[in-house]
């Protein structure tokens, strides 16, 4: 009897795990797809009453998961049927890859440029300070800084 209970529990756990997996996959995939009715909303978030597209798309998605298709197969099926616009984000191959790379490339270049600019401006000033400073003015500056703490307008 105890073994039967344990078996039933194991089956229940397996089923619930499967259910959780399927529902989390469903949730994950419906957020990677767009509703095709023209509302420009993520499929999982389209809540238009009587939407001509989202109900059918969600059913197709559910069917794909039940059939045991992989995520890629499901997404490919959607792209084949509705076109690339059905994907909520560009893919990571072909020209789509540019969408992902460009922001980081530009950011890296801009960051590098800013660092170089700051260094260049800093070098210029260091030379200037070296000529203009003297032990007495340095001591005065240090005293002012010490007494005023962190200062300067916002």
């Amino acid at each position, binding site marked *: 009897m105890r073994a039967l209970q344990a078996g039933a529990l194991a089956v229940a756990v397996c089923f619930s795990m499967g259910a959780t997996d399927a529902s989390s996959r469903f949730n994950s995939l419906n957020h990677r797809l767009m509703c095709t009715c023209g509302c420009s909303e993520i499929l999982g978030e389209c809540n238009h009453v009587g939407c001509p597209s989202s109900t059918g798309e969600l059913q197709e998605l559910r069917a794909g998961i039940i059939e045991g298709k992989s995520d890629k197969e499901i997404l490919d099926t959607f792209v084949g049927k509705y076109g690339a616009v059905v994907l909520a984000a560009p893919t990571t191959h072909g*020209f789509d890859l540019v969408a*992902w790379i460009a922001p980081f490339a530009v950011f890296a270049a801009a960051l590098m440029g800013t660092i170089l600019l700051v260094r260049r401006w800093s070098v210029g000033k260091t030379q200037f300070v070296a000529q203009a400073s003297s032990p007495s003015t340095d001591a005065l500056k240090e005293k002012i800084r010490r007494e005023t*703490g962190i200062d300067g307008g916002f």
Partner: protein
Amino acid sequence: MAAFGSFALIIALALAAWNLLAGALALRWIATGQPAAISPERLADTARRAGIAGFLAVTAAAFSLVWLVFTNDFSITYIMEHSNRALPAPYKFAALWSGQEGSLLLWAWLLGTYGFVLRLTHKTDVKLYAYAGTILAAIQVFFLAILNFAAPPFALLRGATPDDGNGLNPLLQYPEMVIHPPMLYLGYVGFSVPFAFALGALMMRYPGEKWIKVTRVWTMVTWLFLTCGIFLGMHWAYAVLGWGGYWGWDPVENASFMPWLTGTAFLHSVMMQEKKGMMKSWNVWLIFATFLLTLLGTLLTRAGLVSSVHAFAQSSIGTWFVVFMGLVLAVCIFTYVLQRDHLKSDHHLESLVSRESSFLFNNLVLLMACFVILWGTLFPILSEYVVGNKVTVGAPWYNRVAIPIGLFLLFLTGVGPLLPWRSTSLRAVRRNFVLPSIAMGATIVVCLAVGVRPWKDGEFDSGNFFALVAFALAVSVMTAILSEFLRGAGVISRQTGRNLLVATWLLMRRNTRRYGGYIVHIGVVIIVIGLAGSAFNRNVEQEVGLHSTMAIGPYTLECVGFTQDSNLNYNSDYALMDVYKGGKKLFQMSPEKRVYLASGQPQTMVAIHSVPEWDLYVVYEGTNPDTGQPIIKAFLNPLVGWIWAGLVVLVIGTLGALVPSLTPATASLRVPARAAPSEPALKGGRL
């Protein structure tokens, strides 16, 4: 009244054109010193007066349209398409900006209003204001030309006049829609003023940085309007669209966010120009870019270049905007090239680790965020052009690309104020960063302990990871800002003997700009905490019959009834849901589904119960056509209330920064050569 409105628009165009031509001619004569038949000063003054009269003419046109809406004159196409008899009065005002023609008229009227204020205050600096007024007139000519020739709001309906109109788009029949668009437009249009000052100052080679001071106030006010407009739009999306979110990275949302980012960058970098005379060209271009981005936003909204949920104001006036943007860009480049020697800056930094360099990096990140959003918005067009394949760039892309940049910006928000101007020592850096670092470490530990972990079901979860980083950075930044307040207040408290609270107030009054800015940063931190909560959103959807229940988080919702209501404008279905927590009934929620009679369109009205931890958000989605059972979707959205609370703090901070700082009372004393002043007089007694 329609004829009066049309006539007022033609007069307004003529006056704006005169303002532009006479103003330009007068300023040219003054600049070159050419002898003229009439005094250039008098000509410039007639231009200014034409600008003021133009404002009155546009006001008359706007009044005419509102009058026609309220009198239900459906012989006018615009009124027929955007109003109906049963429309409540506040929404009749909203009809003014619910369509293409009306919203362009609102734009022209707001531009006229800004121009009116500017022209009335021209004595601040007659010449600079004359330049700015003339540039504003050029912008006004463009909008009035569209209103007169491409999108006339008073166009008559062809055929018989119907008894009633189509009504206002149901999505717009929500209280916030009465203030969200005007607020957003005040922001959009407002950036024309700093643009006009910047371009004018460059054209006239304005000496010194005074124009920056004038522009700063206008920019801050405009930035505040745009901020409020964006957040009101978010709240509207949250409360009306019924999808449980507030920001969908829709192209039109992005269009409003981009000028906000460049405007924010300007508000920061302008301090470098004021304090160090640096980044003059950069600041001018930031303002140019901000203005151009407001036009781009309008172009995206109108021209239908990208698909958007904001499809209610599309038309074919995109070409007008493209041409105008091209013209503006050409004028900006031409003026800059001609006058660039005037913008030569003395670029010197004492240290890589200083407030100055933090401003540079802050600008870099804000501009990068703007670029990322622009890139994401325009990539579908680019992809279609290059490979003939249209793609969607939606929330998943932005979440991966934009969120890291946003977090880096939050990091700089904390670091910047901790760095002094000019240079710092390693010891000072260590001293200033100890508390925020401890706060960050403690937050990470607490978050991990309470279950905010960067993994879910054994796998890395980017949403949770970003939320963890956001919480840690937010607490760290908050600690840094509060320690700044405490440090300053402590000094004042010691000097004056006042308690810490009064000392903090005095501190803020002495440098409203700096501490107002800090309060704005606190608002941003609170908003980020609210945004990070979205990583833990939950929802459940089910059909509910009478007395059936659904559970979400700690709440159990029981359906205790359905009811209906109707008025002249719409019919409603309500679900009455009792909400229980721990077996105890807390309150009742009544999500609603409306069907508007004039348009026949359905609309959800979400029921929201907000507490600091989360929002319980319940949507009546409709009925299942197969079973006839109502469908309810409930969301538990953590920390959403923090976003709106953060906005309030941000507004308070901005208003605080606009208040002039308290200046210490000073008095000059003429002292005879041999008579020393008495002791009390020196100490501030009556003189």
